[in-house]
């Protein structure tokens, strides 16, 4: 409660102290613009991180428990080998279900590359069998040996070969997003520190007079800290609002669009945007505090 009271007191400020320190125009604009631009970028970095996280989770979940058996055989043996493979799979420990994909399903898989009018009948395509694993999974090497013995044209692909790199790439993207947010916060802090230093230098005479008449450093610093914190809060709120509108204008997620159309925020993640102006204000508060105390320490 006392923290809340302190925050409220800080936001309300001391009108006399505010009046004593005149605002310097260009630092106002610099702080508001920097905070707005940085908040705009954070919105996208956040959206990228969260989308990458969702993608990594989805791919990890979906691919981790599925495998594919591909049967390449002469047309007259295809049905027999498919049935033999299904029999092997049904009797394999760790396989929850196995089913051969229909022609329509195979056509749907190939449609993005060859178009919807693909004449599958005329092409020597392998038969695909989708395998869903139990939670404990199956012994891939053992299954490969059994398939090699009983279904010569079958090849087991448990996705491990490419699942790892894909999930790793998505995880890296997630990390990259968060690193970007941290870097943007640091850059915001640096810019606000520069602006605060400029404002302190421009007000050197004011500070000297206030010290002369008995003002404590904390009193003088408070006037600058409050001003820069509120400017950063306002600028970041504007930047976040524009970022959110830009996200809304992005195409919605769709199967066709794949990853690129899933960049927007989903559900409760929209509420995370509220944190961006607050984060900017916190960064501004501490950046200005550091700058003010460093400057004041050098004065008598």
């Amino acid at each position, binding site marked *: 409660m006392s923290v809340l009271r302190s925050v409220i007191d800080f936001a309300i400020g001391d009108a*006399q102290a505010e*009046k*004593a320190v005149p605002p310097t125009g260009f630092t106002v604009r610099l702080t508001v613009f920097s905070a707005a631009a940085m908040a705009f970028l954070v919105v996208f970095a956040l959206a990228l991180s969260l989308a990458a996280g969702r993608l990594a989770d989805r791919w990890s979940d979906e691919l981790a428990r599925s495998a594919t058996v591909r049967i390449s055989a002469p047309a007259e043996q295809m049905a027999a080998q498919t049935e033999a493979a299904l029999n092997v799979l049904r009797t394999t420990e760790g396989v929850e279900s196995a089913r051969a994909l229909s022609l329509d399903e195979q056509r749907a898989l190939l449609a993005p590359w060859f178009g919807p009018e693909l004449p599958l009948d005329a092409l020597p395509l392998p038969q695909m069998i989708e395998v869903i694993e139990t939670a404990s999974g199956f012994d891939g090497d053992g299954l490969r040996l059994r398939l090699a013995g009983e279904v010569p044209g079958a090849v087991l692909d448990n996705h491990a070969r490419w699942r790892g790199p894909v999930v790793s790439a998505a995880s890296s993207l997630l990390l990259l997003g968060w690193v970007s947010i941290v870097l943007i916060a640091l850059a915001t802090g640096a810019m606000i520190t520069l602006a605060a230093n400029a404002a302190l230098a421009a007000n050197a005479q004011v500070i000297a007079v*206030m*010290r002369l008449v*008995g*003002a*404590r450093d904390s*009193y003088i610093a408070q006037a600058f800290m409050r001003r820069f914190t509120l400017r950063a809060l306002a600028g970041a709120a504007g930047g976040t609002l524009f970022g959110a509108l830009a996200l809304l204008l992005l195409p919605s997620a769709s199967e066709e669009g794949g990853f690129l159309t899933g960049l927007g925020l989903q559900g409760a993640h929209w509420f995370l945007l509220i944190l961006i102006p607050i984060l900017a204000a916190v960064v501004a508060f501490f950046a200005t505090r550091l700058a003010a105390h460093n400057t004041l320490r050098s004065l008598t």
Partner: protein
Amino acid sequence: MRAEVMRQKGRKLIEFERVAHSYSGGELFNEVSLRLAPGSFHFLTGPSGSGKTTFLKLCYGALVPSSGVVRIFEEDVRQMSRDDIALTRRRVGVVHQDCQFLDHLTLRENLALPLTVSGHEALDDDANLKELMGWVGLTTRADALPPELSGGERQRAALARALIMSPDVILADEPTGNVDWEMSQRLLTLLIELNRMGKTIMIATHDLGLIRAAKNHVQARVLRISERRLQLAGADL
């Protein structure tokens, strides 16, 4: 008020003990020892560059001596935190030659600044403030900005600001440097009046006429910085 002075007689407001001060290799003064007693009146003289302003800055903690000890209200300035120094300045009124006002605030707001920074509410109708402005003859200039004031008005305003916290000590650095003779006499009268009210006064000035005029009305000690030493009326202290 005199009773208060008598009560404080045993206290040392500002004390120098074998103080030396140097600027980038050049020594301004050394071996300076002095004690400002409550209710005393001092003039500090010396040629330009002799260290009068530095001496006053040492008196209110704006500088720390190169060697020796300066005690303000019995506290060693070296041991004082920046907050302690700030609190000390509320008990030491300082009047500079260049006055140092905030040009964007009105005269009333400038005079109330020491009250404001020490946490008092904004006192636009504060009786003390009004009385003080009347005492220095600036009631009609309350809403003027500092650049609109004449040199004499600025000096009187600086004196009023130095007094608003009712300090124990008033340090004035060439307070009559930018004003004519008549105004300097008026300022001197105000300072003598303050001394009679019990305030300890130290005025740094090279204006010997001002010192002579004061000696007719107040028992003042004249200190002179000469050849890096502080002397009293021609003799080493």
